[in-house]
């Protein structure tokens, strides 16, 4: 019973954060995760080659001086949306035969307040979380400090979560 409770709380906690609710019931050996490593490698290559991890490109974006970032994000959304549409229409299953699940995100004040705060940080550091990892890989070693600070920020949010408006 105690364990059941734990599992339930666990799911409840995870569902509060829309980013980690994709529940796969399948159990795989550890090395199955390597495919996500390779997906990450591809993503990292694209991030660097498209210069979206460049501090200068982010400054251009927020000053409306270049179309580049808008083109990248816009066309990524179009391709992503078309793929999702096709997956839904043809009921395409995952590699392991599971139906693909999409979970609806719920509105919270966090999307506005947290969103603004993240925007502030994005303009200063020129990085969102993905590019933080890419900048480190590309040789800007001091960004390790930025990443540690971002982890600290996440922790502090978790600590004060109950007191913040949502």
């Amino acid at each position, binding site marked *: 019973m105690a364990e059941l409770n734990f599992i339930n709380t666990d799911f409840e906690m995870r569902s*509060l954060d829309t*980013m980690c609710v994709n529940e796969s019931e399948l159990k795989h050996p550890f090395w199955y995760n390597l495919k996500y490593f390779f997906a990450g490698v591809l993503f990292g290559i694209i991030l660097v080659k498209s210069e979206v991890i*460049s501090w200068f490109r982010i*400054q251009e974006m927020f000053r409306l001086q270049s179309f*580049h970032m808008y083109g*990248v994000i816009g066309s990524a959304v179009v391709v992503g949306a078309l793929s999702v549409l096709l997956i839904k229409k043809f009921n395409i299953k995952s590699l392991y035969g599971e139906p693909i699940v999409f979970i609806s*995100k719920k509105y919270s004040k966090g*999307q506005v307040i947290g969103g603004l705060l993240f925007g502030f940080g994005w303009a200063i550091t020129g990085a969102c979380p993905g590019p933080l990892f890419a900048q480190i890989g590309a040789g800007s070693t001091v960004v390790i400090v930025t990443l540690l600070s971002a982890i600290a920020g*996440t922790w502090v949010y978790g600590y004060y979560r109950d007191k913040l408006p949502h």
Partner: protein
Amino acid sequence: MNFIEWIKQPWPWYVAGPLIGLTVPLLLLIGNKSFGVSSSLRHVCAVLLPANIRFFKYDWKKEVWNLFFAAGIICGAFLVSHFLSNPQPTIVDSDLVEELQQFGISNYNELMPPEIFNWKALLSVKGLIMIVVGGFLVGFGTRYAGGCTSGHAIMGLSTMQLPSLIATISFMAGGFIVANLVLPFILKL
């Protein structure tokens, strides 16, 4: 121009954007995973310092794929910068060049201006704000918003979610405010 020279150039938006978009179906198809990077920061907290905080008490082993993905990003970026990097300085809008000039930023050889993002800068107020405070805002803000550019702007908008549109507009609003109204004062320090 041979293939290697060609691929070393920066990729235009209409090549990079669709490739980033394809990450969405790739992750869904190889394991039913929702694209999103900022969760990795939460998992690091859950692994290293859960400190009995409810938000970090979950079975992070189920989410470890996200950390593999993040590690892959570091390696992919490392590979590119060592074997396929663009030898030319970044071509930046002339208005921005002019603006940054007055703050002593004129080196465009790397993706980050080395005048700001270097280890010694951590000893200055400007560097502390740019590196430490900026990073803190990224981590705190993305988790509060429930996602970042990948989770909300790309995955969320691809699945037509209104909360993600609200989040994306807030990201952009925050960025516009700070880049135009606040950053000049920080860079002047």
